[in-house]
């Protein structure tokens, strides 16, 4: 079996920063496993500017931000990158199994960093009653369809949830010629950054309904309309406030959940509600020598903070390998 000092799972900004920091701290033998065919993680589909203001004091797009790290990673001899490598199993004594086209590989690590990112919360998790037609997309999926494939999902959209991805997608769809009829947010305030509310909604005349929820989705084959209602402080529907918005597309942007199924498989403690590792300190897990960073550790708003904290995870792993703690 292949043996490595450190294996990093996930090649997004978190995994790259952790691998680079571990390398800088003297770890000689690092394997970085990424499921996709590129490094960069979710940044590859975030083509809008707004990344790197803290880290580089300049405004970059997602792919540009990622690229700075990809260049460094490929220059660093102590890091070996394996793409299209999907980790399917992790044990508490740090044995890793991963699939890649043509092989099932096994590797024994001395330390592991999990940088597997987040998945999006879905319509099913809220859950919204009604029918289940075509035209309902997690906002991140719509982002990928439009930005990476050039696929325009529909004509008229309503967005559920005012997280940053939803706000950015409101503007994106408006720019692509779709009519964005509303953003519906159950809380009293937007969940996204104030600058995104201003630049993505206000500038495009897209109404934001605070303290409102989608009471139903309707439509047989494709979405036809949504029923919206106002809610009280306990998020219960206020009677008599229902109104309808016709649309063929509904984007769901109701937050992210860390992907920690591997950590759970290894037997580490994972909070059942937030799906984050249970540990005394950021980046640690309940298993010694196993670390988690980036969106897998907690949901971050800014990629700059992901990079900063993930570098610490790399240093922690290096220290563990040197001193056993």
């Amino acid at each position, binding site marked *: 079996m292949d043996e490595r000092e450190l294996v990093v799972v996930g090649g997004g900004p978190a995994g790259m920063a952790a691998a680079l920091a571990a390398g800088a701290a003297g770890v000689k033998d690092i394997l970085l496993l990424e499921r996709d065919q590129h490094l960069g993680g979710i940044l590859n589909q975030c083509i809008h500017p707004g990344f790197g203001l803290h880290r580089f004091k300049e405004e970059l797009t997602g792919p540009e931000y990622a690229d700075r790290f990809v260049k460094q990673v490929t220059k660093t001899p102590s890091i070996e990158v394996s793409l299209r490598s*999907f980790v399917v199993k992790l044990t508490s004594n740090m044995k890793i199994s991963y699939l890649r086209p043509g092989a*099932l590989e096994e590797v024994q690590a001395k330390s592991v960093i999990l940088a597997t990112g987040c998945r999006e919360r879905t319509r099913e998790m809220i859950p919204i009653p009604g029918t289940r037609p*075509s035209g309902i997309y997690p906002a991140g999926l719509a982002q990928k*369809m439009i930005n990476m*494939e050039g696929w325009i999902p529909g004509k008229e959209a309503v967005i559920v949830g005012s997280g940053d991805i939803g706000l950015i997608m409101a503007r994106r769809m408006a720019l*692509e010629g779709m009519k964005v009829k509303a953003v519906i947010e159950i809380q009293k305030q937007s969940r996204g950054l104030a600058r995104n509310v201003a630049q993505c909604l206000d500038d495009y005349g897209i109404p934001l309904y605070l303290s409102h929820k989608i009471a139903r989705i309707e439509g047989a084959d494709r979405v036809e309309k949504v029923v919206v209602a106002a809610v009280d402080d306990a998020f219960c529907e206020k009677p008599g406030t229902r109104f309808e918005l016709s649309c063929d597309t509904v984007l769901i942007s109701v937050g992210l959940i860390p992907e920690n199924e591997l950590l759970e498989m290894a037997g580490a403690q994972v909070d059942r509600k937030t799906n984050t590792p249970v540990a005394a300190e950021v980046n640690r897990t309940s298993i010694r020598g196993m670390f988690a960073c980036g969106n897998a550790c907690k949901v971050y708003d800014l990629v700059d903070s992901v990079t900063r904290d993930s570098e610490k995870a790399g240093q922690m792993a290096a220290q563990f390998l040197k001193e056993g703690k």
Partner: protein
Amino acid sequence: MYHNYELMPTIERYDAIIVGAGVTGAAIARELSKYKLRVLLLEKEAEPAFGVSKSNSGIIHAGTQNHPDSLKGRLCVAGNKLIREISAELGVHFVEVGQLIVVFDEADVAELDRIKREGEELGIKDMQIVRRDWLSLYEPNLGSEIVAALYVPSAGIISPYRLVYDLTENAVKNGVVLKTSHRVAGIRRLSGGPYRFEVEAAGSKYQTRFLINAAGLFADKVSAMVGVTDFKITPRKGEEYLLDKKREHIANHLVFPLPTPTSKGILIIKTSDGNPMIGPTARDTGDRSDLATTEEGLNEVLAGARRMMPSIERGDIIAYFAGLRPAAGKDFIIRHETAVPGFVNVAGIQSPGLTAAPAIATMVVGILHGNGLVLTPKKNFHSTREKTTHLFEIPLSKTRELIQKDPSYGDIVCRCEMVSAKEIREAIRRGARTMDGIKFRTRAQAGRCHGGFCTTRIMKIMQEELGMTVEEITKRGEGSELVREERRHG
């Protein structure tokens, strides 16, 4: 004139036409394919199994809770036996997990005794009343107020849509002609010759000696096309809620409460894909297309399930759906219509229709034979089917062997459910034409992220395999397209 005659479309002729490719129609088609007959299976949806047969509990019932004199009861017990043979032949995953009917009150144990007696009359074996100590050992997550249960070992689970796909695939392999997106719009009775019906679907006409109506929720409409109008389908809605696979081992058996007059109550269900499920509700609805889930339904299902297993939480839910039971009175209606010779109604196939389907098929073939259909067995009938490979069903060591044979087993498309590119392509080769068809066959998009990560990749594979444009890809047939427009750059 000769010229015109040349242009006239030739009418396809069959010995039997089956309307509806749900589990009932698919089972009948496969049964008929054992004989030297020309059989046509017509389905209005883009793929088989898109009607009632896709949205149910997936339970192979033992047969309890049916009246001993009912068709439902007899065919359920017979179907439970036959499904074991069929699943072995077709390579469908059937698991006999057993069922518990639980009671909260000592006084209700008498009711369990009655259910047991009735079940024994139907021929159900090895039932046993079990007490708290047994339950604590074998079903530890049950609520503490439960005092006893009836244990019925012969109940099991199956993937309902995969059963339909595999039955259909095998029937087609044995010569049955399947036409999807073919809604039967009219039936004309012919007189004189051996062909007694002319069926119109998707602009074409098909003639047949025998016509079998297995149209599920629309069976009364199809029957009315030949003038038989003495029953009406009343859809009864059932909402079901799937839980995260992480809860897979929350229950070891199917857990039932005592039945109500109209339904078996809210159950805790094991599914053959691992995710537990809770439901279904039972509410009559006048609308055959009303597949909406509701807030009330969710609350009812959660309350019913939590009463039996308090550790189930709202946050465990990852998916939900509703199905409509095609009820026509209390029992199934399976009969040759003497007023319309050659026409067989298979209607009102409510629960336990999934279980009963193989027995219904045998019964229908018997009816056809009794009314003049000659059954000559085929010597070259293919009774078996090469089992579909699902990585999620096999150990990693097996996966390694597969990848060595075919590298694309190592190319994972759906990460939540671990589905490879090979499995997606295989599903398309076996007939999947829509995103739902791929989901039902492979589980890709059925996990906790609901296709957030893999949808675009699957769409690309469909384009490669089927030569479709992206605008032509649908969720489940015409009208459910996913993309309005592709911006072709450059």
